[in-house]
């Protein structure tokens, strides 16, 4: 039997894969497009409701409603909180120092990691594309993108329409230096954020810089939204305060929006397929892809798919892993594959405000400070984006931990807080909790990389091995972020906790780099369209192609770049 050759084979059904599939199917009817997805879950309201119910009964160690999915052994969450005996998926080698571990995780799910994202969608800044041109102190690094902000600007506009971004056009015109209009008006600031905004703006300067709290652009509906009739109508946010792990009403965008559009346009989706290898011909064209299907009942069987164009849209860990698994003497030889791994490293400073802010009502964050993302300092330390949280102390202390701490008062044998005194203490503390977080840019360092482990996963596929180490540039950025956040909270009259500067960091769960974009194959893997320098019919989509990581959340940027890639793929398909 003759094997079908697809026009396009896409690996991964997250934002990049789903959006790309939809734009291709929309642009050219009749294209045969296949998406291979490692996870396996439904996309409908019943699936959302099922996740919602699981969330309701989660117990100790159950960090998300997705923990019990059948795909977990085969499409592992990198850290396995539900099975402490099992070895973690990431191989960190002999490294045990928590400050030298790559901590960013992702979800292997149909629809990708947007099942569990916060929805923040700020743009990269114009200077983010040309750090070498602006900051001569950074000359030792290769940081210029092969694109300018102006070249991507229209794609940002379109990406904002596709994802449905609500934002304050006037405030962001000042940030970006040009007029703009978001598709939706901004998400209202929470009551507490309004108090914080007024107090922080009243400070004037922080760490020598004028600061303003402004609404964060969010892929979350402030009005019912259907992108001018091109998508199913989704409702306005009801403030369920549960953006992570799950928006129960899908007011927040997730990639199932575009995946469903793509499927309705005839795109084929195969779930439960973990890719093991690409194969290229002598002329450099990629001809086929192999995968194992854990849903087939025969996970040892290797299936093959042929295609005219291949798009790797897994993520910045799995995409290079697939390429490295495929490496031969003649193919996938680019030495930059896997290198320049990035994340945003984060910390937060927390405090108790002088009056109730009433957190846990509305989106988990509605506003932030953009003033530390760029400036002369960037020649010497990372820029950072700050968020004023609407979720108490965020990751630092949950409501449950607060209660635990109050109930621990003096412990057994001592005074125990209960009754009306407990009730008052809870109300007094929780309603006044506030955090200011900072998300710090990590420069692309060659040594930070994904390579192949000699250990295998449950399908017998080599696992990724990760190396990640911050330099003084990023540590100084963390220190400055901590200083600024502390100055802000103290300045507005908070009692600030955890004052020592951070010696460790949290992850923003933004894996980026590893197949970076550039003009020179000696220093990059793909060109400005996401096309492999080495294989003309192979494209990468997603944050793996980022040349640098900025301090902005990556989803809008990767969506904008995916729109470029889709256009390039269409051109490629028009060639004989």
């Amino acid at each position, binding site marked *: 039997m003759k094997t079908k050759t697809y026009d396009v084979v896409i690996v991964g059904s997250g934002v990049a894969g789903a959006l790309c599939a939809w734009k291709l199917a929309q642009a050219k009817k009749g294209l045969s497009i296949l998406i291979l997805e490692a996870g396996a879950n439904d996309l409908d309201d019943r699936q959302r409701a099922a996740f919602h119910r699981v969330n*309701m009964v989660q*117990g100790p160690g159950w960090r998300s409603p997705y923990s019990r999915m059948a795909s977990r052994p085969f499409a592992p969450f990198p850290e396995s909180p539900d099975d402490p005996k099992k070895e973690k998926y990431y191989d960190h080698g002999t490294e045990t120092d928590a400050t030298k571990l790559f901590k960013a995780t992702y979800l292997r799910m149909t629809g990708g990691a947007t099942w569990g994202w916060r929805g923040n969608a700020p743009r990269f800044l114009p200077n983010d594309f040309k750090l070498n041109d602006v900051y001569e102190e950074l000359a030792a690094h290769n940081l210029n993108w092969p694109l300018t902000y102006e070249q991507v600007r229209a794609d940002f506009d379109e990406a904002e329409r596709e994802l449905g971004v609500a934002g304050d056009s006037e405030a962001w015109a000042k940030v970006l230096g040009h007029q703009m209009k978001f598709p939706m008006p901004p998400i209202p600031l929470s009551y507490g954020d309004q108090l914080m905004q007024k107090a922080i703006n009243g400070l004037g300067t922080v760490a020598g810089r004028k600061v303003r709290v402004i609404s964060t652009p969010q892929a979350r509906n402030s009005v019912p939204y259907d992108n001018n009739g091109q998508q199913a109508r989704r409702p306005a946010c009801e403030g369920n*305060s549960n953006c992570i792990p799950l928006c129960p009403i899908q007011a927040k965008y997730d990639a199932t929006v575009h995946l469903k559009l793509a499927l309705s346009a005839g795109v084929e989706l195969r779930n439960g397929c973990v890719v093991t290898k690409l194969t290229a011909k002598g002329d450099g064209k990629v001809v086929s892809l192999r995968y194992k299907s854990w849903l087939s009942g025969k996970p040892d069987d290797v299936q093959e798919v042929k295609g005219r164009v291949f798009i790797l849209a897994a993520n910045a860990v799995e995409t290079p892993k697939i390429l490295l698994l495929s490496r031969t003497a003649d193919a996938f030889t680019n030495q930059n594959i896997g290198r320049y791994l990035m994340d945003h490293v984060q910390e937060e400073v927390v405090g108790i405000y002088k009056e109730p802010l009433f957190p*846990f009502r*509305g989106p988990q964050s509605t506003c932030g400070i953009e003033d530390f993302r760029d400036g002369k300092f960037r020649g010497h330390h990372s820029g950072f984006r700050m968020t004023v949280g609407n979720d108490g102390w965020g990751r630092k202390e949950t*409501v449950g931990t607060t209660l635990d701490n109050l109930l621990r008062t003096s412990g057994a044998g001592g005074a125990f807080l209960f009754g009306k005194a407990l009730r008052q203490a809870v109300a007094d503390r929780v309603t006044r909790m506030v955090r200011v977080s900072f998300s710090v840019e990590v420069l692309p360092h060659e040594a930070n990389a994904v390579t192949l482990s000699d250990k295998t996963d449950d399908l017998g596929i080599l696992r990724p091995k990760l190396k990640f180490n911050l330099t003084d540039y990023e540590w100084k950025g963390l220190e400055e972020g901590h200083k600024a956040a502390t100055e802000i909270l103290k300045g507005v009259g908070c009692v600030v906790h955890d004052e020592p500067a951070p010696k460790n960091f949290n992850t923003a769960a933004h894996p980026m780099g590893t197949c970076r974009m550039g003009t020179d194959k000696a220093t990059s893997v793909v060109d400005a369209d996401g096309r492999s320098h080495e294989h003309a019919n192979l494209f990468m989509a997603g944050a793996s192609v980022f040349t640098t990581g900025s301090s902005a959340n990556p989803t809008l940027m990767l969506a904008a770049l995916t729109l470029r890639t889709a256009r390039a793929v269409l051109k490629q398909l028009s060639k004989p």
Partner: protein
Amino acid sequence: MTPNEAFMNVSGLLTGVDDLDSALGESYRRQIEECYCAELNDLIDAYRKAVLTKDPEADLQRQLKEDTAGRLWLAARQVIKAWYLSQFDDPGDKATLTRKAGAAGFAPSALPPLPGELQRGLIWRIVQAHPPAYSVQPHGYWSQKP
């Protein structure tokens, strides 16, 4: 006083909330007995003694302080956590505890909660918010003072 009446009474004193739901209380009592059976009985006994005094709250506090082994504290803490957050701490293999024969612990699958338990956690109404993922208010409510 039935076991549930006693549990409801001690719950009211511990939580500081008077209008507790007795059906929810029945569910919580059964779940707490799974792992803290003897400790809960001790706590209810302590409550029965306390209500005979002029100041039950002060007397219960006294008994909690005098219980240096922490058995009353453990049960009281769990009763409060159940009502405030619908949360149950599995004590694990602590030898001091009297796990009910055959009880596996607080595995959610073994003890499915009543519908709506999480939503009715007292903490959310005390802080004038709502349980995460369960808002029943219109868009933008969060911009107003509760």
